[in-house]
């Protein structure tokens, strides 16, 4: 770990200024991902700007929905009565992530911004295209370890089956973001050029030719809050996470479902998958297919088939081509209470 400066910001403006001034400056929220990255020298910061004093931890009802501050802790969001009542999918997804201790530290903003868990990314003696150049210090600008994608042709059991590129097949590891993607959230940010809002579907990106970029946030931009519109999808919701142990493991595949039902008929439905792509993977085709249909195993199977179009395995993760549709069916059955 290299020596770095540590500052505390008291206002969002000060935080943005401090981070946009230097290329090697980072916001420090719960630190549960960033500190690991610094210790592993994947991130070599010039400065960490502590944003824990910013007044951004409120969870409140707004005219159009619910607003969650970027500094709200994962556990606080998961346990909040408003969230449990109106957005049970979000609560379930949060509680499926990490461990109780981590959720007590992790923030909503940090969770969205967490980096992939691809092991090659964390070990700079192995090839990875995602690390990008060294951000600060004497080696600034030089590659941080060998280029190439270690996971292609390597250990890729945890890796993506959708939206990959030959540069990178990593997945975004967040559970929370699967719920936010399904629930059509909007991300409110502030930055050197002022405030803007980003639709959640456009927040994370696919690796393409620039796998070092996980999302569309511009340099120096700070997440302020997330808005989730009011919906009628609270009653029939389920977050299914298939993983290698019962708790405290990243998803092999996860599925978030939120539906509005009338009798056996699906009035409206949202579906998103985790553990399968570089971003939360929304299943629009499957949603369109299911809307207005009966909640039956046949329909679920058809929806799962539609959802899997374009999926591609890389060897060790080929099992996801079966596990993913199976998980969609299982999650739909549980959410619609048709098991």
């Amino acid at each position, binding site marked *: *770990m*290299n*020596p770095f400066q540590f500052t505390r910001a008291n206002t969002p403006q000060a935080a943005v200024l401090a981070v946009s001034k230097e290329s090697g400056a980072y916001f420090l929220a719960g630190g549960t991902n960033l500190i690991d990255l610094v210790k592993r*020298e994947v991130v070599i910061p010039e400065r960490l700007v502590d944003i824990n004093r910013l007044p951004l931890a409120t969870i409140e009802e707004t005219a159009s929905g619910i607003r969650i501050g970027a500094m709200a802790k994962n556990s606080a969001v998961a346990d909040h009565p408003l969230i449990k009542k109106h957005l049970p999918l979000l609560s379930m997804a949060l509680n499926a992530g990490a461990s109780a201790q981590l959720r007590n530290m992790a923030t909503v903003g940090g969770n969205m911004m967490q980096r992939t*868990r691809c*092991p*090659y990314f964390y*070990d700079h*003696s*192995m090839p990875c295209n995602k690390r990008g150049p060294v951000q600060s210090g004497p080696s600034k600008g030089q590659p941080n370890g060998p280029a190439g994608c*270690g996971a292609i*042709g*390597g*250990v890729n*059991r945890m890796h993506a089956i959708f939206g990959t590129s030959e540069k990178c097949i990593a997945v975004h590891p967040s559970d929370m973001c699967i719920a936010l993607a399904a629930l059509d959230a909007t991300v409110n940010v502030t930055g050197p050029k002022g405030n803007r809002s980003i639709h959640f579907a456009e927040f994370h990106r696919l690796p393409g030719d620039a796998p070092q970029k996980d999302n569309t946030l511009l340099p120096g931009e700070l997440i302020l809050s997330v808005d989730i519109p009011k919906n009628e999808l609270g009653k029939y919701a389920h977050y*299914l996470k*298939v*993983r*290698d*142990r*019962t*708790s*405290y*493991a*990243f998803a*092999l595949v996860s599925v978030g479902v939120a539906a509005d039902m009338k009798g056996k008929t699906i009035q409206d439905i949202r579906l998103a998958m985790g553990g399968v792509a570089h971003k939360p993977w929304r299943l629009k085709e499957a949603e369109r297919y299911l809307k207005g249909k009966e909640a039956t195993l046949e329909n679920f199977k058809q929806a799962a088939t539609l959802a899997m179009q374009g999926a591609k395995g890389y060897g060790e993760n080929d*099992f996801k081509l*079966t*596990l993913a549709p*199976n*998980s969609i*069916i*299982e999650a739909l059955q549980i959410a619609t209470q048709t*098991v």
Partner: protein
Amino acid sequence: MKNEKNPPLDRVDGRMKVTGGAKYFADFAIPNMTYCVIVGSTIARGTITSVDTKKAQGAPGVLGVFTHQNMPPIPGWDGPASKQADGPPPKPDTEEKYRILSSPKILFDGQPIAMVVADTFERATYAASLVKATYSKQTTRTDLEKHKKDEITPRGGDYARGDAKAFESAPVQLESEYTIPIEVHNPMELHGIIAHWTGADQLMVYAKTQGVNSTQQAMAQAFKLDPKNIHVHTEFMGGGFGMGLRTWPQETATVAIAKKVGRPVKLVMHRSQMFTMVGHRPYTAQSIQMGADKNGKLVSIHHAATAETAKYEDFTEATVNMTKFMYDCPNVSTRYRLVRLDRSVPIWMRGPGEATGAFALESAMDEMAHKLNMDPIEFRLKNYSETDPEHNRPYSSKHLKEAYERGAEAIGWKDRKNEPGKSKEDNWLAGYGMSTGVFNAFRWEASARVVLNADGSLVVQSAVTDIGPGTGTALTMIAHNVLDIPFERIKVEYGDTSLPKAPSQGGSAIVSAVGSAVFDTCTKIKNDLFELATKAGAPLAGSKAADLSIENGNVFISNDSSKKVAITELLKANNLPSIAQTADSKGSAELEKYSMYSFSVHFVKVKVNALTGAVRVTKAVSVADSGRIVSPKTAASQMIGGVTGGIGMALTEEAIIDHRYGRFVNNNFADYHVAVHADVPAIETIFIDKPDPIINPMGAKGMGEIALIGFSAAVANAVFNATGKRIRQLPITPDKVMQEA
């Protein structure tokens, strides 16, 4: 000793442990301490072409950067080859030798290439990050599956009895292959050492070792010192599971560096280094050929295992041994091979060898029972060995039948359907499985010292380390049983080479070995008291020692308890501030006439999600036939811990290597999955609790290993019963269950 069940006694050091009073090696603070951090190689095979330590040397607080270019010599390692297993010199028949920081050759991933010492841990860590090396890489061989043809036959060789061709004509035949991945002990406590030269030839060591005497021996040899000059202290250990059963090269190197630096040095390794520098359970591929007749009588078993080892040292374990005697089968053969890879050397891990072997044998028994359409317990009973068919001698004790019965009752075996895939629970498939475990019961040599004070309190001393099973509690119980001194007045002192010699904490042997020594020593004290009570002029003068008993602080005449004298009175009357005794204890030649084993039976109930392949153990019952249970409470904890390890072995644990680089990709606690609470259901432990008449005066056999041995097979068998899918490759992760046809 009273021949009755022992009462449940709370862990005597429990309070200390949960209040922070128990000191682990890294807790010792020595003035002037310095801190050592190891830099590991990032390749698994090749040569260091350059190592740049200049920046590290100039970093704040740095006192020394040691590489193969300036490592101080370890005098005992440079002498003629010896038989010492701990560290170099290597076994003569291996291809390479590994001596830490002695050459630019890299033999395994993570091999230390530099050890950096600074005045704080943080500064040492930073300086270590500044050490940069370049390598000339060579082709890396780390995948056992790809290099099986390079197998070698280790000492011990093959075993066979009966007709080698019997399988071919067996009416019912089974041929199956099983694999166990690399498993890493991963105790919570990180490995390391504090080395403190208190004089030119005086060494104090705080180690993470399962045996202070063995560390003392290793250091004496390495530094050519009289063992008396070396003081090793390890009272508590935050889990060992076998990784502390030898003195690792980096420990010895730290001692050498401490001498050079002239200050005490503390080494605490990083979690990732626990994957490459302190051993592991070796990846092992096994195959079983089993033949039976139509009535379920075994005709033949052939069990073969091929395990990985290092290029520089052959590590062997008893993987195929259980097959030789577990079942009454006339034709049995085993085959054990090693493949030397570019890997660090394995070491025993809880249930060493047998846990690996039992997965194969006990899965195969289940597969065969299924082929025969027989209940798996019935099949085992049909082939029950009443005497040891390997050595043709009786078992010292074996109550396995009762263990099957009681476990079956507790799990609700009668609800099991013999046909797989027929039960459902909460819309998941449900199934039951069972398996047998076995491990040698040892009686090693040990000694103890016991001091009875004039106030009636007792001090029990032995060098043995408590790695967690509750050794202090068990020894308290044994002393209590001989002298009837109240538990709270007994103090056990252990984990220090100033105390009487004891074997390393391993092989489930400590209650038997050290417990016997404590028993014998306490018996000597008892005899001393009887003598004092009966000598001329004493209150019980004229009585014979054989007619006396001791209870409640009094010596009395067994058939007339009104004639008694208080122990405290006896010492006072004789002006004795205390009575001390020491005894060396070992088994008699009589023991050789018997085969001594502890047995276990594991029962599990699982549910399996048919769509996602997720497996949950919903109930576990483990039965131990391990003689008299000395300390029921800590023994139960020991079983629960073993079963938890067994769940990890069955469902989650696997250290994964990218064989292109020979490097681990999940060497941390987030990605190497030990079982978490949510994976572990309520575990019921049952003890047969019948004393073994042969092994030792307590009648106690070991139980640390059998708590885990066989458990993974019980889970695999239950998954089969639930789904009809047979998983022969551990761990049983959702992808395997979901896909397997």
